[in-house]
């Protein structure tokens, strides 16, 4: 195979500038992660300790096989929202190994508002369910939730992607044969009661776990009956009388032991098989990605330099190298898995769009997973390209990509603007996992361009109405808020707080995260030909 030959100069000013800038952004990311994972008031920690509950991170440590990875999902969801207190949306979610099997785990962090469901909690739960369905991963839920956060009920209850969707998904997952194991490690009130009730198997912890459709206060208000939580939905009621719970656990540690026992007995699913190679690390130091990825989107960089630091042995077979050069397509291995990689070296032209469409079709036919490395300002514009039919060529790429049935993975390694985001498998195109680099930005267009468009529109309007043109100050007054809003709402930390992605990656982790994600995705079979056509040459 061809080895990518690096051309970077690690002594150059540009490299140093990029490097220093990325180091600072990664440090900021790590600090944000530390806060989200650890920063809890002592009072909250003491409270759950007094209740005899184990902190969620400790539950996770016990649940996961020793010395195995944990691919956490959206640890910064909800960052900066709701007074900045709902770290990770109050949920810890991720893919991990339990008894040798890849599973999705989701658990309430009871140190955050008693595990109440905020809009971001809802969104994250649904995201994890989607991942379970797309990748056929068993889902283990460690539930300890006070239920919907009532002051925000209008944002968690009524809509298509609100509370009801969770139980709809649970039903569908069950029908699909996706195992759902739930450990009741706290209150499961109202909607929360349905999570264990709709699971395949439920473990109930003595003394601290309770399941009821209406909690004691609601029962009292409605019927006047006075009952304790334990009487109303405790372990004895549900294990001995109602049969809602299946396993009786003495405490959190015991409950986790039972979950592990269940996973031990669960037959391992036959995974989709890819012709694997012996994994080998890249030839070049992945740390150099820091110096390669541009600080400024205006400064282009060769995505092959990035690919060379992600793929096995830095080996890459490039497809149509001399045609449509603004998109780079080719085959490589990551952690031994064959992949087709599509990366951007500029905006999409008609020829680059067609090249990508053809490449995607080949990968899909051959059942090779696709990896998109997004650094895209959009499709080319201008009269000449409209005349060539850029819209219909873009359509080919979007269509091929949207319809591909192989697992897709997206890493936004720079800009993610406009229809470029769509063509390069943005969130709406169901990549199995989507991550951002700390420097990445996502928006319909860059702030500069957006403000430029608005200024132009205003100028045209003024001219049409025969009014005098704007002064410099007036122009600036239009530009400034747009640019500022864009800065605030398009950066990676903002994106991840909104759950537009599955997390922000330290670029050093790109290869490992992709390897883990590919392996997890293979739990779902790769369906046979659904095209009905061969591969169209473009």
């Amino acid at each position, binding site marked *: 195979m061809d080895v990518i030959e690096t051309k970077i100069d690690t002594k150059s000013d540009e490299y140093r500038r990029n490097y220093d800038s990325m180091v600072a952004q990664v440090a900021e990311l790590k600090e944000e992660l530390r806060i989200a994972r650890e920063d809890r008031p002592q009072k909250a920690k003491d409270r759950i300790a007094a209740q005899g509950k184990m902190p969620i991170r400790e539950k996770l440590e016990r649940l996961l096989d020793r010395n195995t*990875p944990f691919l956490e999902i959206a640890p910064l969801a909800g960052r900066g929202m709701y007074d900045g207190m709902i770290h990770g949306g109050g949920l810890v979610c991720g893919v991990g*190994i339990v008894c040798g099997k890849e599973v999705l785990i989701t658990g309430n962090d009871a140190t955050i508002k008693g595990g109440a469901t905020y809009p971001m909690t809802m969104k994250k739960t649904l995201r994890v369910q989607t991942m379970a369905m797309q990748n056929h991963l068993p889902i283990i839920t460690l539930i300890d939730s006070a239920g919907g956060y009532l002051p925000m009920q209008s944002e968690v209850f009524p809509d298509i992607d609100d509370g009801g969707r969770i139980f709809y998904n649970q039903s569908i997952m069950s029908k699909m044969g996706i195992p759902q194991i739930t450990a009741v490690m706290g209150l499961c009130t109202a909607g929360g009661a349905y999570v264990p009730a709709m699971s395949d198997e439920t473990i109930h912890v003595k003394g601290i776990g309770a399941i009821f459709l209406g909690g004691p206060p609601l029962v009292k208000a409605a019927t006047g009956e006075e009952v304790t939580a334990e009487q109303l939905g405790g372990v004895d009621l549900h294990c001995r009388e109602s049969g809602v719970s299946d396993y009786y656990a003495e405490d959190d540690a015991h409950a986790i032991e039972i979950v592990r026992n269940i996973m031990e007995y669960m037959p391992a699913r036959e995974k989709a098989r890819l012709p694997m190679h012996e994994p080998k690390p890249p030839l070049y130091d992945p740390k150099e990605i820091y110096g390669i990825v541009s600080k400024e989107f205006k400064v282009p960089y060769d995505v092959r330099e990035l690919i060379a630091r992600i793929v096995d042995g830095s080996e890459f077979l490039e497809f149509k190298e001399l045609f449509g050069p603004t998109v780079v397509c080719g085959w490589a291995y990551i952690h031994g898995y064959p992949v087709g990689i599509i990366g951007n070296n500029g905006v999409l032209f008609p020829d680059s769009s067609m090249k990508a469409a053809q490449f995607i079709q080949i990968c899909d036919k051959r059942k090779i997973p696709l990896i998109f490395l997004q650094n895209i300002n959009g499709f080319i514009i201008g009269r000449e390209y409209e005349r060539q039919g850029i819209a219909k060529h873009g359509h080919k790429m979007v269509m091929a990509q949207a319809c591909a049935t192989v697992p897709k993975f997206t890493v936004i390694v720079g800009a993610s603007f406009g229809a470029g985001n769509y063509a390069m498998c943005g969130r709406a195109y169901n990549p199995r996992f989507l991550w951002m680099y700390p420097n990445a930005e996502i928006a319909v267009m860059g702030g500069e361009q957006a403000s430029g468009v608005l200024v132009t529109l205003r100028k045209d309007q003024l001219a049409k109405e025969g009014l005098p043109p704007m002064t410099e100050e007036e122009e600036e007054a239009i530009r400034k808020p747009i640019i500022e809003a864009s800065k605030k709402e398009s950066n990676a930390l903002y994106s991840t707080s909104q759950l537009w992605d599955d997390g922000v990656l330290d670029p050093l*982790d790109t290869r490992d995260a992709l390897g883990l994600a590919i392996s997890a995705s293979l739990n779902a079979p790769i369906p046979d030909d659904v095209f009905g056509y061969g591969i169209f040459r473009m």
Partner: protein
Amino acid sequence: MNTCREMGIATVAVYSEADRKAVHVLKADQAVFLGDSDPAESYLNIDKIIEAAKETGAEAVHPGYGFLAENPLFAERCEREKLVFIGPPSHVIRDLGNKTVARRTVVAGGVPVIPGMNRPESDPGILAREAENIGYPVLVKAAAGGGGKGMRIVTSPKDFQEACASASSEAGRAFSDGSIYLERYLTRSRHVEFQIVADQHGHVVHLFERECSIQRRHQKIIEETPSPIMTFELRQRMGAAAVAVAKASGYVNAGTVEFLVDQQGNFYFLEVNTRLQVEHPITEMITGLDIVRIQLEVASGSQLSLTQENVRSRGHAIECRIYAEDPEKGFYPSPGKIIYMREPSGPGVRNDCGIYSGFQVPVEYDPILSKLIVYAEDRNQAIMRMIQALEDYVILGVSTPVPFLIDVLKSEAFARGDTFTDFIDTHFSGWKPDRFDEDAACAAFIIDELSRGRKAEATATQQGAGLSPWQTLGPWGR
């Protein structure tokens, strides 16, 4: 039981709930379930044991070394039921079991006793006066006692009343007899005992001494024979005294006469144990005799074939008692499941062991696991052999004093034979094991690495392809 098997005698074991899987039960030809783990429902329940003996047609009862072994009522009941009790007659057990009666008997036989009272007393005033007469420090002892229960050392009069009260109540609980008496407490004394055997025809011989000075909580943990202080002359005198005690009390079967020896070499009678003792194997090692066989022969009415002249000893033997206990926490019992064990073996190494891998050490009883005995040509060689045997001994799952015993045996004081009953307090109080062990750390690391590898392999075959990064990346992201 091994001896019985050698002699062609069938054996019946009795057991309680907690001992269902104990070694004695597994070894016996037949085993009878007595009842609940609570000793009152099983091992202390005379009716049930007698019933078991009758039901199985047993001719004789060996009382072992605990529970009913020194209970005159049990011996008496056996006598009444025409079962041979393998031990002395019940009246001898009764007389010697009461320490003050024993003192009187012994004094009559011309054997020196520790200055002290000849009668139990409960009146605090009289006790206090006696204490003044004897002179502090005094030892408060339970008249019916044993095993250190109900025993207190009092160094000054101001602590006296309280010590008497607590000793009395402890004795009352343990032996249903709260009476106490006083003795002079000998500072820095040795515990030296003589094994005796006597037949029903008035012949008594002693099988030399055992030194049992290394004790914790008044219980022996290391015993050896010969005693490091023994001289030919002293052995003659003490042996004669032991035989005199046996004769004066009308003793039959195997027993032990215990003495304290002070720093000047004066010895004082302490008590008689009217049973086989835990530490009897060291005597067997140096004499080549099987004491249990002698017990059985004597019980069957045979004459002793031994005479004092033809009892010979050779070499040196040491016994270490291995309990499930934590030497770092005041030798507090540490029951639990034996996850794994490996017994030491080799020339001159004997391990009388009551456990196996997977055995659950019951919380209900004295947690002795095994008795490790070594025999060698001389004391130095025996110490080295014991150290090696202890180092080879692996017991995982419960705490044991093995590392502590190794340190004791390696100590200068032990090597010098500087063994007094306060040995552990003097040389090893607050003992902690040396945890800085590079070899152990390396081994642990290698095992960890190896087991991780195996795990990865197991899941890889499921997948049918190469290793996934889930198996190769370790705790990534955690």
